[in-house]
Structure formats: structure tokens, C-alpha cells
């Protein structure tokens, strides 16, 4: 048997598979670079001070901005995170710490299902039971986003906490620390970086959601005075202006898309930088 020949064949085979993996990974990233490139190309020219301070223009005006949409998005996404993140963390903790519990098993089933519910269905649901009673409002918008955020964060929290071996929890218990303190003072802080990655992912997802906001926060040509009113949001403005057919409004939509992408990037880098500072203070 000619061994060196077989070795050459295996070596070639190994190299081709590695090349294939590299190529496929690269191709998977290409659309992302195109999106960023186009959004910057089309959106960058629109951005100026008034874009961040003024209301949207009418089709024949050459100035204006999306200030009301930015403020509205911040309010609605902020409220959804404020309520949803702690809620989802508790849910994730319960699912991972009491995996065999009957209620946990049914909750896990519900969480798994709701991750796959299309966001427009959530929008219609909130519309039919909240909006029909109380009208369009930022609250209704936040509630719809909350329903998207909670299962995502709960699931990622559960999966991350399950990765921490059981003997770490037992080490905490063995120090005479009550169970809830072991979870909230040892396990959660120890996995903070990973937990926040899950939160960032969910935040990026809800910041760009359009469909559930169409039926709930609706939109507004002006600044809304309270959370109980119809409220403008960036994704809905992008959606409406991009199909308006007026070039100046279409440009506004590109500008809005750039702001939305940058917002998600900034939050992502901001949280990572904050964690970096935190770690370098505690650990060298």
C-alpha cells in the first residue's frame, strides 16, 4: 500500500474543507457589509443638525428631520427594556434553577413557542385587546415590544445559567450563603458579560421592529406629549417615508435607517465598553 499517497490525499481533503468553511463564512458576511455600505452612502448626506432636532418635512419642503421618531423610539424601546429585562432575567433564573418544576416546564414551552411567533401577530394581538380599549399609545407599543423581548432574554439567560456547573452553586451554598444570594450575588454577576450579550441582541431586535408598532404606537407627525398618545418611531417613519414616492422623504428614510443602525452599534459598543471598564476595575 502506498501510504505517502494517501497522506497527500487526506492533506488535500483537509485543506479543501478548511477553504470551504472560510469561503462560506465570508459569503455569509457579505450582505451585512453591503447593507452598512448602502445605508451610509445614501444616509450620510441627509444627516445634519436639523435632522436630529426638527419634525419631518412635507413633500415640498427641503429641510426637517426625524427628531420625533428618535425620541419616540427611545421612549418606547427604553420602557420595554426597563420593564422587560428584569422580568426576563427572573424568568430565565427560574427556568434554569428549577428545571424539573411543573410550572417551569410549561413556562419553558410557552417561551420556546413565543420566540417563534411572528412579530406582526403580536402587533395584532396587542391591537385587539389593548388598543381597542385604550387607543393607540406608546404604552401599547412598549407592551408589544415587551412581548418580543421577554422570551428572547429569558431563553438566553436560561441557556447561559445552565452552562455554569452545579458544583459552583454548591460551593456558594457550602459557604452558608442562602440560595437566592448564591444566584443573585455570585452566579449572575459572574455571567454578566454573557447575559448582557443576550440583552443587546434582543434590544437590537426590538429597536428595528416595525410591524408590531404599526398597530400599537401608530405614529405621529409631531412630538407626542405623553406616553398615552400615538407616538412616532424611527422604524415606522422609515417604512412610511420609503414608500412615499417623494425624493426628499425617501432621503429622510435613508437617514433614519443610518441613525437606527448607529444607535444599535453604539448601544452594543457602549455596553461592552462599560463591561470592560468594570472588569479592569475589579480584575486586572
Amino acid at each position, binding site marked *: 500500500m502506498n501510504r505517502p499517497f494517501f497522506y497527500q490525499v487526506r492533506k488535500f481533503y483537509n485543506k479543501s474543507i478548511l477553504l470551504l468553511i472560510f469561503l462560506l463564512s465570508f459569503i455569509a458576511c457579505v450582505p451585512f457589509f453591503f447593507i452598512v455600505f448602502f445605508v451610509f452612502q445614501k444616509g450620510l448626506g441627509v444627516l445634519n443638525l436639523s435632522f436630529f432636532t426638527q419634525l419631518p418635512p412635507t413633500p415640498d419642503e427641503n429641510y426637517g428631520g426625524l427628531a420625533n421618531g428618535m425620541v419616540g423610539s427611545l421612549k418606547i424601546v427604553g420602557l420595554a427594556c426597563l420593564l422587560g429585562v428584569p422580568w426576563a432575567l427572573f424568568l430565565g433564573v427560574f427556568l434554569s434553577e428549577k428545571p424539573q418544576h411543573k410550572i417551569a416546564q410549561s413556562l419553558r414551552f410557552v417561551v420556546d413557542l413565543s420566540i417563534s411567533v411572528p412579530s406582526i401577530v403580536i402587533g395584532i394581538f396587542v391591537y385587539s385587546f389593548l388598543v381597542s380599549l385604550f387607543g393607540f399609545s406608546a404604552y401599547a407599543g412598549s407592551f408589544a415590544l415587551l412581548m418580543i423581548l421577554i422570551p428572547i432574554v429569558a431563553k438566553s439567560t436560561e441557556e447561559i445559567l445552565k452552562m455554569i456547573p452545579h*458544583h459552583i452553586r454548591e460551593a456558594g451554598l457550602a*459557604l*452558608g*450563603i442562602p440560595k437566592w444570594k448564591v444566584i443573585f450575588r455570585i452566579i449572575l*454577576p459572574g455571567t454578566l458579560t454573557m447575559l448582557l450579550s443576550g440583552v443587546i441582541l434582543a434590544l437590537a431586535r426590538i429597536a428595528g421592529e416595525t410591524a408590531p408598532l404599526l398597530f400599537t404606537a401608530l405614529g405621529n407627525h409631531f412630538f407626542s406629549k405623553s406616553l398615552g398618545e400615538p407616538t412616532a418611531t424611527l422604524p415606522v417613519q422609515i417604512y412610511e417615508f420609503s414608500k412615499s414616492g417623494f425624493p426628499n422623504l425617501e432621503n429622510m428614510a435613508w437617514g433614519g435607517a443610518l441613525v437606527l443602525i448607529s444607535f444599535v452599534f453604539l448601544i452594543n459598543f457602549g455596553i461592552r465598553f462599560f463591561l470592560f471598564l468594570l472588569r479592569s476595575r475589579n480584575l486586572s
Partner: protein
Amino acid sequence: MKKTLIEVKNLSAWFKKNQALSEVNVEIEKNKVVAIIGPSGCGKSTFIRCLNRLHEEVEGAFLKGEVLLEGKNIYDSSEDPALIRRKIGMVFQKPNPFPGMSIYDNVAIGLRLNGMKKRSLLDERIEQSLRSAGLWKEVKDRLNYSGLSLSGGQQQRLCIARALAIQPFVILMDEPTSALDPVSTGWVEELLQKLKKQVTVVIVTHNMQQAARVSDRIAFFIDGKLIEYNKTSRFFTKPESPKSEDYITGRF
């Protein structure tokens, strides 16, 4: 007069339907090292986990019998398991520093969460614990480094320091050196001899040479039953049970 610190009476333990321990009776004297030996799956770990009430934390686990610590049953319904565990510390088989915590915080966490807040007191107790665990010299200039940055042997000594920090009077060790190299094992064994002056140690080990080197008494288990409980010197020279003799000589 011997001073009995822990008295185990008719202790039986189960995981769901599987009985792991049956009718164990042992008296452990103060400031001694007791080694628990026996074949795999004989209930050694279950036994020491019953001494600090960790057994009950496993899904479906329960037990019968009494464990008296200084005459008081730790399974009395009025006893708080957290308070029991502050008196009876534990070191595990695998070194398990808390993730994302510095060396300092790993030792401090037990104290902090039990109410000690003052920095000067904490500093003092942490230095003392790390010294007792023989780790102080190696880590005193990098207390802010992650606990996971240490080598395996150092991590295990960090876990010993963590257990010592809350000043328990018993330390349970579940095969503390089975994941360590011979040099680190030597360190830990040397440490045990020093610790004996302050605390009582119950150590599970698979290594009979280690049991002979470190312990004053041996408890030998087979299939959840205590076969023999004897002075270490007698156990290895004139064991009472023929099963012990078979085990020592490798005819098991």
C-alpha cells in the same frame, strides 16, 4: 477523655429510590483528620454531604437519622441549613473559584454576604485565610487577578482559603487532590496537618497512601455500609474486618 464533635446516628440516605447509605454510626473527635475510603459509588461523598446538609439540595434526595454537632441535631426542623454550613465548610473535588471574581473577592464573598462590610477587617481575615491555605506569598501582589488565572493547585488552595475565611470548625473535603498533580497534592496534604490545630477535617480519598499519610482515623465504606471505623495505624496493620484487609491488599 476524647471530645466528640460530630456524632452520626443511624444515618441512611437515598437518591429517589436508590439507597446510598444505610444505618451509618460514626463519632468524630475534635481536631482530628478522618479519612473516608472505599470503592467508587460506596457512598463516601454522600456521607460527607450529609454532614453539611448539601445532600438535600439534590433533586429527589432525602435521608433518615441524626447528625449531632456538639450535641445538637443539625437536621432539627428549627436549624437553618445556611447557619450549619457556616460552621461546617467544604472543599470540592474540582477546584471551583467563582467565575468573574478576583482572588480577593473569592475569599471575601462568604464574609461579605454574611454581613462583614468593614474593609480593614476583611483585609485582615483574607490575608489570614490565604496564609493558612499556604497561598499568600504567591498571590499577595495580584489579589485583583481573576481566581481562574491561577493554576489548578493554586485554585484548590484558594478554595480552601475561601472555606477557611468564614472560620468553620469542621472542613469537609471531597477528594480534594484527585484533580491535582503530585506537587500540589503534597502541598494540600502538608496543609491538612497544619489545619488540624484549628479545625476538624473529614476527607474523602481514593488514594490509600494519602489516607494513611494524613488521617488519624479511617472510615471504610462498602455499598453504603460502614464496614470499619478504626485508628489509621490499626486499620492498616490489624484491620478488624476481613473485608478491610481484602481492600487494603487489593483483593477486592
